[in-house]
């Protein structure tokens, strides 16, 4: 019905709504912005005003000093992602947005864990650390600081493992992400 190039009409029943739908999964948005004052405020303000929740947000320079990269993650169960990206696109300083496909993306975050280690627990924590390819970056008599780099899943798994020992503090950068293959993100 309604093939292009024909005069055949469409059947209205066949029409399906596009957009405005919730995907139910986590989304990683990679946003190129002009490196101008106030850009981050505009983005944060937009999210606040429209009631979009940001899970993580990182900002950093790129190889071009006129342009910065913002990587942010948000929950596609809570927000129609197309509406989020379209609103972001309306900001004049936003140059490009990519909603990264998880399978075609390498994403990493850095986390620092301060774990309390009394007596013989130290060995156990260090063992876990090794399994996760973490790095011990500070040691005192009663604590360790471990540096973990990896996907969010890995960081969260490590957290679950060391929490029982006594997690004094944890700091995470939020994810940065880059698309796989030769093309630019």
């Amino acid at each position, binding site marked *: 019905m*309604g093939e*292009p190039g024909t*005069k*055949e*009409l*469409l*059947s*209205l029943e066949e*029409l*399906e*709504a*596009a*957009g*405005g*739908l919730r995907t139910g999964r986590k989304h990683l948005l990679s946003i190129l*912005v*002009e490196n101008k*004052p*106030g850009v981050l*405020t*505009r983005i944060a*303000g937009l999210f606040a*005003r429209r009631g979009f929740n940001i899970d993580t947000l990182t900002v950093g320079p790129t190889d071009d000093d006129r342009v910065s990269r913002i990587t942010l993650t948000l929950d596609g169960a809570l927000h*129609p992602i*197309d*509406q989020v990206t*379209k*609103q972001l*696109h*309306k*900001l*004049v*300083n*936003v*140059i*490009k947005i990519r909603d990264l496909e998880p399978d075609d993306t390498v994403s990493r975050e850095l986390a620092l864990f301060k774990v309390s280690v009394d007596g013989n627990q130290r060995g156990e924590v260090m063992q876990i650390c090794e399994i996760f390819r973490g790095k011990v970056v500070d040691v005192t008599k009663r604590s360790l600081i471990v540096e973990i780099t990896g996907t969010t899943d890995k960081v969260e798994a490590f957290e679950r493992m060391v929490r029982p020992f006594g997690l004094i503090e944890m700091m995470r950068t939020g994810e940065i992400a880059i698309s796989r293959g030769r093309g630019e993100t």
Partner: protein
Amino acid sequence: MRAVDAVMECLKAEGVEVVFGLPGGANLPTYDAFYDAGIRHILVRHEAGGGHAAEGYAKATGKAGVALATSGPGATNVITPITDAMMDSVPTVFITGQVRTELLGTDGFQEADTIGISMPVVKHSFLIQHPLEIPRAIHEAFHIARTGRPGPVLVDIPQDLSRADIQYEPVNDVRLPGYQPTTEGNTKQIRQAAKALAAARRPVIYAGGGVINANGAPELTEFCLADRFPVTCTVMGLGAFPAPHEQWLGMLGMHGTRAANYAMDEADLICAVGARFDDRITGKLSEFAPRAKFIHIDIDPAEISKNVPAHIPIVGDAKNILAKLVAEYRALEFDSSRLDEWWTRIGGWRKKYPLRYEDSTDNEIKPQYMIQALYEATGGEAIVTSDVGQHQMWAAQYFHFSKPRRWINSGGLGTMGFGLPAAMGAQVGCPDQLVCCIAGDGSVQMNMQELATCAQEKIPIKVFIMNNGYLGMVRQWQELFWDKRYSQVDMGDFPDYLKLAEAYGATGLRFTDKRTLVSDMKDALATEGPVLVDVRVTREENTYPMIPAGQPAREMVG
């Protein structure tokens, strides 16, 4: 030259004929430049008046309106018009003064974070950090304000930078890598839309202010007439289709006609053009047009599927797309008689539920009649602005707008006090046309001061105050939904508008008799200079019909 002299050059290069503003410490250099720049500057009496005047100018002419304010209180005074221009997509440029750069962040005298305060309500803004940035910022501000979905753009210039010497070179390009509005409209989607329309048995064309912004009224009309499509407009879209007309259903929404709202409710296909499914249109969203599929044409992709998921989205300029849509539609084999049944149904509603009110049996002027009388007195040949309230809705219902840019009101923000300064701006932009303001007695007092500007500048607007002595729309809601507990809505018999008009240097008139109203109005229209007319109307009259807030269209009352 001084950066401010470059600003004047930029304004001229942008074709600016007039600006509205009021000076202060932080924009003294700019005003020094105005002294002999040869650009008309209208000294308003409140910056909000200047901002709304810029909006009225823009809406009447289609050109960008320009308003100026100093830092701090001057800038905060334009926040309302900026927000209004954002909500109604009005192309406007606001240039504000800022304290000297050395004072920024120190809570200096008259320092306000204008960029920060305005950020959520501007299309874009420029904080000038170097005098050399000024010409490009002004140029890009106009470009952004006018193109795509129009809106307000603010340029904030610190005082010291504005007086700095710069080498001025005209700017002929824009460098906005993140700003490329889509205007063309996808051909495949347009073809799909044509086919869906040809298949629809109960279609409705629902047009909004975007059609007027795109100067697309002729194309909309041609499209609607390409078949027997029923058409309705939002309060922002009135005039996009020539009313009254066989295919015209009247305005839709909270105070729209039953024919328009019921048609939306029963439609199988709704074609939205430059309209955004605001809650005043949809009522209860989950029960809005339950049987319909949607074609949504808009220049702003973010509007599509924001409130109502679109089945055929078309991003682009309405004028452009409608022209292509007509061509695609005409190429199809459609059968207009498929709409017979639909028109019979619509005809039934029209007959059963015309707009109506009970007229007075004595001399009393019913507010609805006041609008009809003005329509008659002007022959419909006028630009009409309005404030916000009952009078606005009656004006929208009873004054038929047959052309675009004839009806200028604050639809999205609903800003009381909009009408009088907007009329001033419209009159400045269209000196040869009759400009009337249908004002509320509550609203008009919010920007009354601009009557002095009109008197001084000889701007001959005719202001008709629908004087019911009440904040009428609020009183109506209190009557209907709050048990008639009239809390803080009675304004009594104040002020005396005759004396006020005289004090401002305008002509004051008072009309109280319906039998002579049309001829009285004609006299008022023939009076030279600005005229303020106090029209005494029935105090407690309600605007009907009405979809109570949050209810579906089927539940219209009155």
